[in-house]
């Protein structure tokens, strides 16, 4: 049944062009990988001999002159803590608020909805100075918890909006059936409604985690003590000091930092592929 198509020249040209503009990106990420496992590269990305020396930050301290860098594991733990807390709070709060905005009727709802849209587009970073003051005032400056709260607050309008969309798609009859069966509003929420938007929750959670994991500007600005550093801040300092000295080390550290992102890509790609092949198999 498969028709053999001859590609038109314009189509071939598009493919070539797309491949050409995409090449530097692929190249850059390949370098990140090759550079992390080799001292020397040929043609930019082909490793000449493999070494784990660049990954030494995983098991020993790294120094530059007399300066000793922090051990990476407590910092990784901080990053995990930061991203994990952001995910948890963001999902929980947006599930509650999204439900109210989707399903409840109360005065001021319209105002809150419109405000949420505007905040969605509001420049949170422009408020950095005032946020500094607020954090300082509530005693959360130089604390991971402070960055968590800010990041959650800034991402809430978006997350709530998405979750609201998921709730909107659940038929009212299902919720009504729950009330008729004897549920209170809260019971209907977690026993009947939540299980049905699991995929949506997962999506919001993954994006919240990645956003938290990648978070730079607030940690960089609001955290000063090295014991509270996150990977982003650590890497930024590393770049500042090693930039012209040891790209191999930087590549390895950068790659280490990117593990969750890469995992996300592999997993989502794989699930997309299986859907494809599953479809072909019928």
């Amino acid at each position, binding site marked *: 049944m498969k028709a053999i198509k001859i590609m038109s020249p314009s189509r071939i040209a598009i493919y070539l062009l797309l491949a050409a503009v995409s090449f530097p990106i692929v190249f850059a990420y390949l370098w990140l990988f090759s550079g992390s496992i080799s001292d020397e590269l040929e043609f930019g990305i082909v490793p000449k001999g493999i070494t784990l020396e660049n990954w030494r930050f995983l098991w020993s301290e790294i120094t530059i002159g007399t300066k000793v860098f922090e051990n990476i594991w407590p910092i990784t733990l901080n990053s995990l803590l930061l991203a994990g807390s952001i995910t948890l709070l963001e999902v929980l709060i947006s599930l509650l608020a999204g439900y109210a905005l989707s399903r409840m009727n109360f005065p001021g709802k319209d105002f809150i909805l419109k405000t949420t849209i505007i905040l969605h587009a509001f420049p949170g970073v422009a408020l950095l100075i005032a946020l500094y003051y607020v954090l300082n005032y509530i005693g959360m400056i130089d604390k991971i918890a402070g960055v968590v709260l800010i990041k959650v607050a800034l991402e809430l309008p978006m997350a709530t909006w998405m979750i609201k969309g998921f709730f909107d798609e659940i038929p009212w009859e299902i919720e009504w059936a729950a009330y008729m069966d004897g*549920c209170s509003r809260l019971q209907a929420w977690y026993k009947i409604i939540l299980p049905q938007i699991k995929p949506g929750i997962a999506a919001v959670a993954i994006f919240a985690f990645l956003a938290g994991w990648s978070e730079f500007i607030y940690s960089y600005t609001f955290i000063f003590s090295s014991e509270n550093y996150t990977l982003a801040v650590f890497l930024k300092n590393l770049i500042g000091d090693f930039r012209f000295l040891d790209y191999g080390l930087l590549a390895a550290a950068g790659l280490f930092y990117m593990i969750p992102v890469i995992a996300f890509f592999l997993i989502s790609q794989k699930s997309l592929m299986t859907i494809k092949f599953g479809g072909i198999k019928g």
Partner: protein
Amino acid sequence: MEVVMRDVVKRFGNFTAVDNLNLTIKDGEFVALLGPSGCGKTTTLLMLAGLYKPDSGEILFDDKIVNDVLPKDRNIGMCFQSYALYPHMTVEENIAFPLKLKKLPKKEIERKVKEIAGKFQIEHLLKRYPGQISGGQQQRVALARALVKEPNLLLLDEPLSNLDASLRISMRAEIKKLQKELGITTVFVTHDQAEALSMSDRIAIMNKGKLQDIGTPEDLYMRPKNMFIAGFIGNPPMNFLEVGFNVEGDKIILRRNDFEITLPKEISANYMKKQNDERVILGIRPEHLSIGNEAPNTIKGEIFVVEHLGKDKLVDVKVGNDRIKVLTGQDFEGKMGDMVNVHLDLKNIHLFDADDGNSMKWAA
């Protein structure tokens, strides 16, 4: 349980969905709320369920006002048009859910679920998910879930409209039989008059938020109080013809430029309400018309089209600018374009006021 609605009003913004509704449903009765879409029947049902709150008026269950009782505390079983089964639970979990919320002991839940599953012949489906069973099976599961907690009131919202035609007809009988067995007060919303006629003890017919009438199927069919009821109940629907009203002696003559019908004395007596030359609406059902020889007191017309209904034929006859439907036997052999004489069964005519549409005989 007896259900009473007293002066119930429900508005959505400026739109009045239910307007001053008064309705009494007797214990054990099967009542259909019938009307076109948007007539307020589903809103009424949802108010009984407690999912909507009336803006004014009272709803009483066995003489107790329940306006402020939450749905979960009303002990009502409800079955939705889309069935509203919980997709993340198996059939068994779906049916057990209301009992679990009542915190019944596990053993008892199991026993009750088994029992009701037996009654609905769905035992073999218990481990499956709603997405894995057919529409008819989902319907049974939804009914089982609604009934497993032995509710005082059963509410059915267009329960059959998502089923295919043959299944719908067999479910009608099944639901009716079950309702009689259990003796449970049941309110049933439908837009399908055949469903309402075949299943319910009484039909409450609604239009534009107002209750038009409530009565037995026979009542509504034989003695419609207004044109809306007359037109809504009965299939094919009643024919309406606008005619002039004239009284000569003790007889009424209905007249228009293409025909003239003289009503005999005993029938005329019902309608002596109008002045000469006023306009009235003559209503007559297709089954009370027949096609015969040329004679006085008949309507002349041209056959527009003949529809085969299986057992019968439905003949569309053009009379002036109007078209009337006549139900004839299978042996009728007229063709398109033939001129025919339509005979009226004068005992079964209805006259309606041309202004307000009320029956000149039955309106209160």
